[in-house]
């Protein structure tokens, strides 16, 4: 990694600290650049697009160009006089049932992610899947999804997907491959499968498991290995330690008054995350002063989506979390073997206060251990839940949802040693990319080369495919039949929405050849498996019902009675691990383990809190940065156990000191035209015995700098209002992000309210609209429910054909996301409170943008929308210049891909694909409004509340966003807006926004002083 870009000016952290101290603890800040008042921050705050190129590549300035262009304006006008092109209409020969051109169909399916299924309803326009929505009837979705389900559509249409069968790097034929497999089957049958190995990722699919079971019966000496880099080995081992068997732990956060998370990001990663987010938010949903909230304690090393929701967030090295778990457990009465000394950095009385809180809520509290923590922490959490009476209430156990739970790192080690011994003749890999993501101490490439025949089935021709004799393009989950279990065991049938774009096949179809049952299609395999499971005369009826509902009835695993082993805690140790710099490995919050590296939506999606895009970083705390004199973008050489990697540094406020967090998933060498060669590869120093954290990291500055791009300081709303002649307003703080504690709220329910004199229609110079008739659309965003998970941003992108612009354009503030999630910080650098605030278009009633458009391209609708009319827009950008909320986005170039045929299928046909030179912004998903409006009028009725859901509202895991008709007093949005926490952004400007916010509340423990 070399520093080609101009160096960023380092931030003086000492000055920042003293400035922050002076401004008091109440100040809301937008990151280090804000505190330091950096030039870049000021530029972005004070200017619309600060970094327009003054000269184009041709060396002509904008002004000169306009002089010349002015003369030609009349001629340019003629370009509008194009004749419409001649188009063809190509109807069906035989119209398929149900398809009505103009009406999308929705199919229920499940998206497998790390093996576990999330139920989806996928929208299909004339056979093209265009948008994924959550399936309300599926327990892992409840109608919402995470970012990955939204972005998976783009994956399917990705033009870089593997498109042909490769035989030793050359185009091969699938029928040759099948012939080969048939021959090999006969050969290996004779040898009982000795030398036959399979490698998959985590599998929950009952059908696939059944096929493997049959295969392993036919080939008794063959072996089935599983490996994925972010496998939940610790959770599995922890269950085994505590109960002597693998069990699935299912939490019920809606039953928990007190939640303690030990390094767990349960709302953003891991099975059940979407449901957990909903349950957690439901338990904290406040409707009035008599509402209650659960209390949440989190211990973690670096801020995560889940952790920053905590009422008390303790930053601690990952290695010290075990000591906290032991202290907690010991004080709760769990028999702990080792002497417990709480690690340094915990405020006095913190643990005792948590213990008292837990004990006061016996049966209504839960302790959650994170997947990154060692098995003993999981076992301790199980023991604590047991002693606190949570089992059966806040936590239930079931048999494993995984088909074949195993220690996956050990499984890979076993495979590697078999490869070393030359015991592997044929290795079939279904998905996965071990050459890229195997632990550094298992050099998988060298080992893999020892297998005589290597076959790889995957979506992409990736690092692993390169070294395989055969690479077979896999069918995407939207193109194939399969099934997957949710974390509670519920099975969803995966049904295809479209025939494979590139003749991809599924693992089922390859396995069936090896089983000697060639010719069975994916559909037959899955259907026949379920016919065996649920036989009966009415099978066909049931099957249809499962497909329609997206879940197979009665497949949730029954709660299992487990007995805690009393002597689980046999390890000595305890207390802090040896000191020194700690390294922590984390999945990247957007590209995960690297599988989404080629997905432009996820690459450009600003990562939660840091708002970095297009890169991964090595993050350090401000104090550590000061000690090592590191600033953002300094390239660090980090070494662990003799291996090293260079990574750009990022100062992450709220992170623990003496700790470097490395994010996995970048540094891909063979991902595709988007993902190849960006970021660094943290797998290079991740070893199998310390997959999550280790101490003894060496950090050295290389002296280079690297340009990191964050949107954290883009589109800033000024915290200080305009100083008016009224004296009292001079020091007026606008309170863009309003936060109070539950206690404050109870005493003063109106703490967040705007002063009533601020927003009056009478103050407008313009003639008022009649807002008393028809529908009047409005939106409310509950900041107390929002967890900043980004699902809304990417759902908006999928629904509204929003373009990806690339890192360079993002650095100029030209990102196109119609909905952004702003991070706010409050408090000191080391331990700030961190808040998220989604900002779509406010749809102002007195909209500043409308008055300045010279061509009437942005106008007001009778239903209260600020309309953006692309075909009128000439790109003056006055509207965006005048937008107080900075929610307008300009197409400086032709950002939308108008050339790649496979991407045409992805587009929502109900929304215009914008061209260059056009302004765009959130429309409240007007295509959805119009569709429902027409439907309602055709059946002579009015629109029901809840019938229209904007894309962001529909996807939101916590249901923080509510949309509807604000003059219908019975509507949800009217009721929510009637709450005393309701406030408007920048109310002093009298823009009268239709999008308003409910203030954030915290529920701190009065015993803990901060």
């Amino acid at each position, binding site marked *: 990694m070399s520093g080609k870009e101009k160096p960023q000016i380092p931030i003086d952290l000492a000055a920042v600290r003293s400035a922050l101290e002076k401004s008091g603890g109440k100040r809301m800040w937008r990151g280090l650049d804000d505190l330091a008042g950096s030039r870049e921050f000021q530029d972005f705050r004070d200017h619309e697009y600060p970094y327009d190129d003054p000269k184009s590549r041709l060396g002509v300035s904008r002004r000169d160009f306009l002089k010349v262009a002015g003369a030609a304006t009349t001629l340019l006008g003629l370009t509008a006089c194009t004749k419409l092109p001649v188009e063809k209409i190509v109807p*069906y*020969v035989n119209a398929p049932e149900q398809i009505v051109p103009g009406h999308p169909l929705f199919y229920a399916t499940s998206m497998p992610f790390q093996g576990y299924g999330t139920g989806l309803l996928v929208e299909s326009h004339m056979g093209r899947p265009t948008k994924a929505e959550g399936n309300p009837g599926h327990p892992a979705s409840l109608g919402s999804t995470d970012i990955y389900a939204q972005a998976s559509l783009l994956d399917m249409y990705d033009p870089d997907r593997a498109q042909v069968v490769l035989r030793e790097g050359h185009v091969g034929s699938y029928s040759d491959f099948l012939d080969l497999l048939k021959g090999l089957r006969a050969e290996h049958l004779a040898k009982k499968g000795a030398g036959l190995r399979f490698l998959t990722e985590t599998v929950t699919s009952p059908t696939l498991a059944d096929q493997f079971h049959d295969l392993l019966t036919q080939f008794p000496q063959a072996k089935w290995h599983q490996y994925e880099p972010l496998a939940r080995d610790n959770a599995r081992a922890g269950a085994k330690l505590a109960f002597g068997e693998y069990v699935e732990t299912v939490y019920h956060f809606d039953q928990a008054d007190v939640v303690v998370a030990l390094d767990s990001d349960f709302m953003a990663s891991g099975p059940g995350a979407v449901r957990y987010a909903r349950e957690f938010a439901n338990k904290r949903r406040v409707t009035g002063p008599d509402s209650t909230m659960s209390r949440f304690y989190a211990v973690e090393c670096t801020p995560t989506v889940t952790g920053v929701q905590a009422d008390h967030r303790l930053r601690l090295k990952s290695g010290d979390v075990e000591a906290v778990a032991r202290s907690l457990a010991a004080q709760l009465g769990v028999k702990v073997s080792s002497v417990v000394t709480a690690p340094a950095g915990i405020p006095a009385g913190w643990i005792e206060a948590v213990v008292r809180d837990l004990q006061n809520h016996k049966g209504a509290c839960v302790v959650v251990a994170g997947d990154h923590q060692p098995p003993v922490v999981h076992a301790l959490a199980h023991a604590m839940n047991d002693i606190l009476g949570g089992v059966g209430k806040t936590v239930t156990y079931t048999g494993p949802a995984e088909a074949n739970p195993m220690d996956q790192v050990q499984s890979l080690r076993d495979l590697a040693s078999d490869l070393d011994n030359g015991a592997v003749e044929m290795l079939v890999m279904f998905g996965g990319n071990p050459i890229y993501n195997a632990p550094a101490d298992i050099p998988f490439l060298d080992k893999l080369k020892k297998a005589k025949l290597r076959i790889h089935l995957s979506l992409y021709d990736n690092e692993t495919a390169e070294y395989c004799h055969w690479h077979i393009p896999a069918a995407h989950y939207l193109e194939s039949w399969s099934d997957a279990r949710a974390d509670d065991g519920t099975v969803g049938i995966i049904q295809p929405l479209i025939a494979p774009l590139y003749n991809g096949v599924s693992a089922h179809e390859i396995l069936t050849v090896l089983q000697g049952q060639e010719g069975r299609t994916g559909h037959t395999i899955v259907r026949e498996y379920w016919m065996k499971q649920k036989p009966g005369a009415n099978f066909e009826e049931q099957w249809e019902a499962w497909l329609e509902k997206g879940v197979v009835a009665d497949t949730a695993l029954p709660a299992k009675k487990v007995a805690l082993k009393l002597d689980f805690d046999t390890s000595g140790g305890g207390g802090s691990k040896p000191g020194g710099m700690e390294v922590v490995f984390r999945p990247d919050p957007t590209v995960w383990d690297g599988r989404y590296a080629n997905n432009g939506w996820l690459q450009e999606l600003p990562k939660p809190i840091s708002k970095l895009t297009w890169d991964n970083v090595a993050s350090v705390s401000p104090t550590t940065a000061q000690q090592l004199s590191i600033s953002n973008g300094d390239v660090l050489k980090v070494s662990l156990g003799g291996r090293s990697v260079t990574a750009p540094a990022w100062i992450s406020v709220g992170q623990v000191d003496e700790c470097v967090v490395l994010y996995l998933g970048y540094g891909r060498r063979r991902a595709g035209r988007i993902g190849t060669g960006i970021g660094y590869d943290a797998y290079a120093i991740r070893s199998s015995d310390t997959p999550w954290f280790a101490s003894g990291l060496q950090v050295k500055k290389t002296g280079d700098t690297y340009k990191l791009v964050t949107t954290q300081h883009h589109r800033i709303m000024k915290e200080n209002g305009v100083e008016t002649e009224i004296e009292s307003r001079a020091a007026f703080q606008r309170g863009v992000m309003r936060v109070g504690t539950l206690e404050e709220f109870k005493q003063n329910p109106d703490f967040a309210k705007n002063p009533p004199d601020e927003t009056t229609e009478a103050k407008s110079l313009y003639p008022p609209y009649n807002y008393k008739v028809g529908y009047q659309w409005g939106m409310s965003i509950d900041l107390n429910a929002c967890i900043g998970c980004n699902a809304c941003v990417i759902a908006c992108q999928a629904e509204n054909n929003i373009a990806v612009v690339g890192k360079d354009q993002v650095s100029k503030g030209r990102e196109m996301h119609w909905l952004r999630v702003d991070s706010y910080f409050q408090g000191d650098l080391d331990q700030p409170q961190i808040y998220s605030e989604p900002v779509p278009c406010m749809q102002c009633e007195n909209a500043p943008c409308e008055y300045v458009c010279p061509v009437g391209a942005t106008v007001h609708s*009778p239903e209260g929308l600020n309309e953006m*009319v692309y*075909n009128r827009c000439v790109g003056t950008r006055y509207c965006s210049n005048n937008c107080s909320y900075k929610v307008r986005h300009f197409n400086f170039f032709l950002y939308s891909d108008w050339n790649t045929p496979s991407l045409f299928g992805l587009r929502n046909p109900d929304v215009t694909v914008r061209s260059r030179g056009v302004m765009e912004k959130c429309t409240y998903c007007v295509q959805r409004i*119009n569709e429902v409006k027409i439907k309602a009028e055709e059946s002579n009725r009015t629109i029901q509340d809840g019938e229209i859901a904007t894309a962001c509202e529909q996807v939101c895991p916590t249901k923080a966003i509510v949309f509807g008709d604000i003059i219908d007093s019975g509507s949800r949005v009217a009721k929510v807006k009637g709450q005393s926490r309701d406030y408007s952004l920048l109310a002093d400007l009298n823009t009268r926004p239709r999008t308003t916010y409910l203030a954030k509340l915290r529920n701190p423990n009065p015993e803990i002083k901060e």
Partner: protein
Amino acid sequence: MPQIFHRSANTIARVSIYGAVFILAGLGYLGWRVNFSSYYTNVGAHEPQPVPFSHKHHVSGLGIDCRYCHVSVENSSFAGIPPTHTCMSCHSKIWVNSAMLQPVRFSYATDQSLAWTRVNALPDFVYFNHGIHIHKGIGCTTCHGPVGDMPITWKANTLYMRWCINCHKHPWRYVRPRQYVFSVTYKPPPDQNALGRRLVKEYKIKDATQITDCYTCHR
């Protein structure tokens, strides 16, 4: 100093300055006329089609309802172009050997779609919905012209925005009773304005501010 220009030059200058107004106006008028000429709008143009389908024969002659072929016109944005199967539902029995219908039979036999040339096209940034217009009492012929008299389908109106807006501003001039929406012989009664105003109320057609709102058609 002698005069360079003769006195008559004054007249020439006056005429050409004064004339420039007419020349510019003339050019403007020409542009205007081109804009509305059938060359430019395709109104009345006979597009080549794989089969010279006659609405006159099928609709007026045989009395087939519009919806027999355009099945989704009442409830979708797109009226629907019939699949080959619909053609063959009759033409497997009648005119089975007609040379004119060879492409239809070929399509049915080979499962390859017929490719019709689109006659009534709107730009891609316009989101027109057939269903709601039918529901509000706008007849097929109001926009598509005298379809029952068309031996080959042509475009009857410019489909320009000003043309759309004209009706969206004055719907009472065009609306007809729902039972006549699919009639190709319907003639507006002499008291159209009175009838129209009554129907506008009855069919709950929104006022002009609502239906001339940009997002009604553009998004």
